[in-house]
């Protein structure tokens, strides 16, 4: 198996981008990544595109061919990857496999979602497709309500409080305010989160990641060729992916995402590092409670102590471990298919020292964790600067 490096990254500005369409967003991110990698379009021999619900949100399927067309990289092997909200992370893993296997030498991995062309209720229903359509959504479930169940059980079993969950949103907005690509550029307070409208009790509006348009892309090649293109290749030294029941109600535990734990173990074992080696991580905070589960399941904090640690500032920028320096899904925005790729873009910037005002100091390794649905898919990657 060949070692694989990221040699270029790029993303579009996340937000409500009404004046631009799906193809403009993804072409912008892809071309920025290609430019960053200093490769020629004709060198790209495969493309993997992660999108969750283009069919429901903009009526467009066959998006990988569309992306290749608008990036001007035809004729390439263009393939769509879909694993709900983990589509981007799984697209990255698929691209990595293509390079590691030796089948492809220069691969673009893109993630994109165009979500604001439909009404909020339609977007809610489309996102619901990440759960069990017949046995959750039909019964009136929404994603906020599924994560509300997780939050309620975490509160009961470990004494986690609504204020501790709010601290996740406050911290991620603070990070987002230092990221020019983030949807939200404003800081918020615990009080604002606590006073925001209830969406699905105990979760309130500011516990929820927003609906976002955006795209992100990375360029991958074999590590032994990476130095030709960049002085600071970022090697992907570990990858892990796991599945679990599609319906939350079928899980053994609501307070642990088993798929995250298994994917993380595989990634740590492959990378030969452990949670203590990680100083910067992008985790899947689709809801504030999800970040608490993530930092526990990834081994950064003991089970049940994520809320307390977050409220104590232990996950803030340049603290014990910097979590979601991009602003996470809450602050940077959550264009579903783009999120997993954006996480890799942020970690690449952090490890290269290109993260500007939100730069983490002294991080040798970075980690990303991307979740599909309420935890039916999880994918974890570990990165290291390889210069």
């Amino acid at each position, binding site marked *: 198996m060949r070692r694989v490096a990221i040699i270029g990254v790029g993303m579009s500005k996340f937000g409500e981008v009404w004046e631009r369409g799906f193809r403009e967003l993804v072409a912008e991110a892809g071309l920025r990544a290609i430019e960053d990698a200093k490769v020629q379009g004709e060198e790209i021999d495969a493309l993997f595109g992660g999108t969750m619900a283009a069919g429901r949100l903009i009526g467009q399927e066959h998006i990988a061919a569309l992306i290749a067309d608008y990036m001007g990289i035809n004729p390439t092997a263009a393939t769509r990857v879909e694993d709900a909200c983990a589509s981007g992370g799984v697209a990255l893993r698929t691209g990595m496999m293509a390079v590691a296997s030796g089948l492809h030498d220069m691969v673009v991995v893109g993630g994109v979602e165009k979500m604001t062309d439909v009404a909020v*209720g339609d977007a809610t229903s489309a996102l619901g497709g990440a759960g069990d359509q*017949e046995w959750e*959504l*039909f019964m*009136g479930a929404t994603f906020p*309500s599924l994560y509300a169940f997780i939050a309620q059980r975490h509160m009961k079993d470990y004494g986690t409080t609504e204020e501790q969950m709010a601290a996740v949103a406050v911290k991620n907005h603070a990070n987002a305010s230092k990221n020019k690509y983030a949807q939200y550029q404003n800081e918020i307070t615990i009080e604002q989160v606590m006073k925001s409208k209830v*969406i*699905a009790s*105990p979760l309130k509006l500011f516990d929820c990641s927003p609906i976002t348009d955006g795209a992100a892309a990375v360029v991958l090649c074999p590590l032994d060729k990476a130095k030709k293109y960049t002085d600071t290749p970022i090697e992907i030294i570990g990858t892990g992916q796991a599945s679990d029941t599609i319906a939350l*109600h079928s899980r053994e535990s609501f307070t642990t995402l088993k798929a995250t734990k298994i994917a993380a173990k595989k990634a740590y074992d492959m990378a030969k590092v452990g949670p203590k080696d990680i100083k910067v991580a992008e985790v899947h905070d689709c809801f504030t409670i999800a970040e608490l589960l993530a930092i526990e399941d990834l081994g950064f904090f003991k089970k049940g102590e994520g809320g307390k640690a977050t409220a104590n500032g232990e996950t803030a920028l340049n603290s014990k471990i910097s979590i979601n320096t991009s602003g996470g899904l809450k602050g940077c925005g959550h264009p579903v298919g783009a999120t997993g790729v954006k996480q890799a873009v942020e970690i690449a910037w952090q490890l290269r020292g290109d993260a500007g005002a939100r730069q983490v100091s002294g991080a040798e390794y970075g980690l990303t964790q991307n979740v599909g649905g309420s935890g039916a898919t999880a994918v974890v990657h570990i990165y290291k600067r390889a210069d």
Partner: protein
Amino acid sequence: MWRRIPERYRMAGSLCENCRQNFFPRRTFCPICRRKGKIVDKQMSGKGKVFAYSLVTAPPVGYEGEIPYILAIIELDEGPKVTAQIVDCKCDKLEIGTKVKSAFRRITEDGDEGIIYYGFKFKLDK
């Protein structure tokens, strides 16, 4: 959907005679025993207790007229958990562990003149 009527109207489930695990909704294949499993029909009693609940105020398409509604995860007496609404009840009457039983109810419909979908919701089991 007519295929789901036995499960949605009368909570028909499955039992694996090999591992004795009950399943709801029905399964044709035991995910635990795989090829060694032997799946047979098993009727759920419709009784259970609240495992988690939430007051939903932001609905998906087709549920706008229902809000606010209580959505819950119910642990059935036979073991499986299900997601369903709790009706004829206020949130402050509920806690984790409250006993509930199933009730046949309208779930949603395809617009004003479309098909009406029925299924189970839950109410307090006093």
